[in-house]
């Protein structure tokens, strides 16, 4: 409780890191709900890796003077541009290939994951500024977050959450029954494109803030936990966001109290909660099955 009070104090030195963790904990699970529902979990693994590669590529191009020099204060924007460009371009390529129906979807996503991982390392190794905070970003060290990065994250996630809320009805319809949506004259391609742009923006900004592993953890695990326990779609989304926010806060407290890296602590905590939710679900199912077996008197 003491630790919680300390990290929530307005003059806490790492307050921006706390805010970033909470924003990621709120937004990534809401986006992750769609990845789980559309059975695109592997995309949730690959996109953060692609996003990291985009950041590494942007800094490499900068170091090799292929793109114009930017001030140190604008490095966040440079990383954002690299991350977002490569993530959205990858989503576009996946969408076009899926529409043409050629090849294996899992194969494409797997190839993107492994290639993005390899290129991230190669670009960092050959970048004289590779150690300059970039490795920390990719490892998920949420330590020093400048105000500009916090503002960018809050702004982007604000747009994503509002859009998910406003167009929930359309996103659900095209995800659940695409053919029905077409028969109702809905612009299915347009809604799919908007949903994937929101996913891409969330992933790229989150990777920029907390790294690929933590991003994937918050995209996937809260949604899986919520799906085990929820009875309705509304509960599913609300519970996923609540699990994400609570884990982000608890993870930060634990990491601060025992001097652990924040990102991996968050993900380990989510893993523990997933196991606990699974056991709880099994116990509840057994109990309701047992109650059903009791003969009526």
């Amino acid at each position: 409780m003491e630790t919680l009070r300390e990290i929530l104090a307005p003059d806490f030195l790492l307050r921006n890191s706390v805010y970033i963790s909470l924003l990621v904990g709120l937004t990534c699970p809401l986006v992750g709900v769609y990845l789980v529902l559309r059975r695109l979990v592997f995309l949730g693994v690959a996109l953060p890796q692609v996003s990291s590669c985009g950041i590494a590529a942007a800094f490499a191009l900068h170091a090799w003077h292929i793109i114009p020099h930017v001030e140190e204060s604008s490095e966040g924007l440079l990383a954002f541009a690299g991350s977002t460009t490569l993530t959205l371009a990858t989503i576009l390529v996946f969408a076009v290939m899926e529409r043409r129906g050629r090849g294996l979807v899992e194969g494409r996503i797997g190839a993107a994951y492994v290639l993005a991982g390899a290129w991230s390392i190669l670009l960092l190794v050959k970048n004289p500024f590779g150690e300059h905070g970039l490795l920390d970003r990719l490892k998920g060290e949420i330590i020093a977050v400048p105000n500009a990065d916090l503002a960018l994250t809050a702004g982007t996630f604000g747009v994503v959450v509002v859009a998910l809320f406003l167009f929930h009805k359309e996103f659900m319809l095209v995800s659940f029954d695409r053919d029905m949506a077409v028969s109702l004259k809905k612009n299915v391609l347009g809604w799919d494109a908007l949903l994937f742009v929101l996913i891409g923006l969330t992933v790229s900004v989150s990777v920029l803030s907390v790294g690929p592993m933590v991003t994937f953890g918050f995209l996937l695990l809260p949604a899986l936990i919520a799906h085990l326990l929820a009875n309705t779609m509304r509960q599913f989304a609300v519970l996923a966001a609540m699990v994400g926010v609570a884990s982000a806060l608890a993870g930060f407290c634990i990491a601060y109290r025992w001097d652990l890296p924040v990102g991996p602590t968050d993900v380990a905590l989510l893993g523990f909660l997933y196991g606990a939710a699974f056991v709880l679900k099994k116990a509840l199912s057994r109990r309701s099955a047992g109650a059903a077996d009791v003969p009526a008197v």
Partner: protein
Amino acid sequence: MTDNWLLSLDGVAVGYGRHAVLRNIGFRLERGSFTGLLGANGSGKSTLIKSIIGVIPPLSGKIVFTPRDGREPVLGYVPQREGLDAIFLFSSHEVVLMGCCGRVGPGRSYGRDDRDWAQRCLESAGAGDLSGRRFSELSGGQKQRVLIARALAAKPDLLILDEPTAGIDAAASRAIMELLGRIHRERQMTILMVNHDLAAMRKYIQHVLWLHEGKLTQGNADELLTRDKLEEMLKLQFS
């Protein structure tokens, strides 16, 4: 009399990629008619339906809907229920509400009128008591009733059903056909139904479209579904 045609297909070829499954298909659906689209598995029935609703663009030819009072006909589509993923935690009422999505603009929520209308559609499909039940946990026949209610919620001019009685027991299948017959009778609804269960549908349909080896045979049910004609067509089917 063209005003009485709701849908017209002229020289239509449909298929996937550049591969045509059906070529030179032509027929018209009269308003208020009940038509059965028959054919063996793989004959192209579902592909043709998907082209009519706009999922798969025709490779050639024209699919034309005739507007009435300057308004394009509204489609109510009942898909094969196996295609709907059980991972979604929708209640039956939420599934039916989706039928109202065509009338509720982007960014707007469903209103009380839409919710009441969805409940009325569930009741008219004999599924009022399923409103709060999770859709994925319903039996095949119950799901079919909910999907018919969803199509009705769109306030359609043309109801298109893709194998509504496939994979459900004979009693549930009869009940579904009875429901469709009642909807057709009471609302003068135009219905196009894909089915390969001739026994289930022959009592209700007025017109038959029979697909075989890429060719379409069509006519009145009374003429085409006689013993002699059926033997002739089934011989074709299995030859």
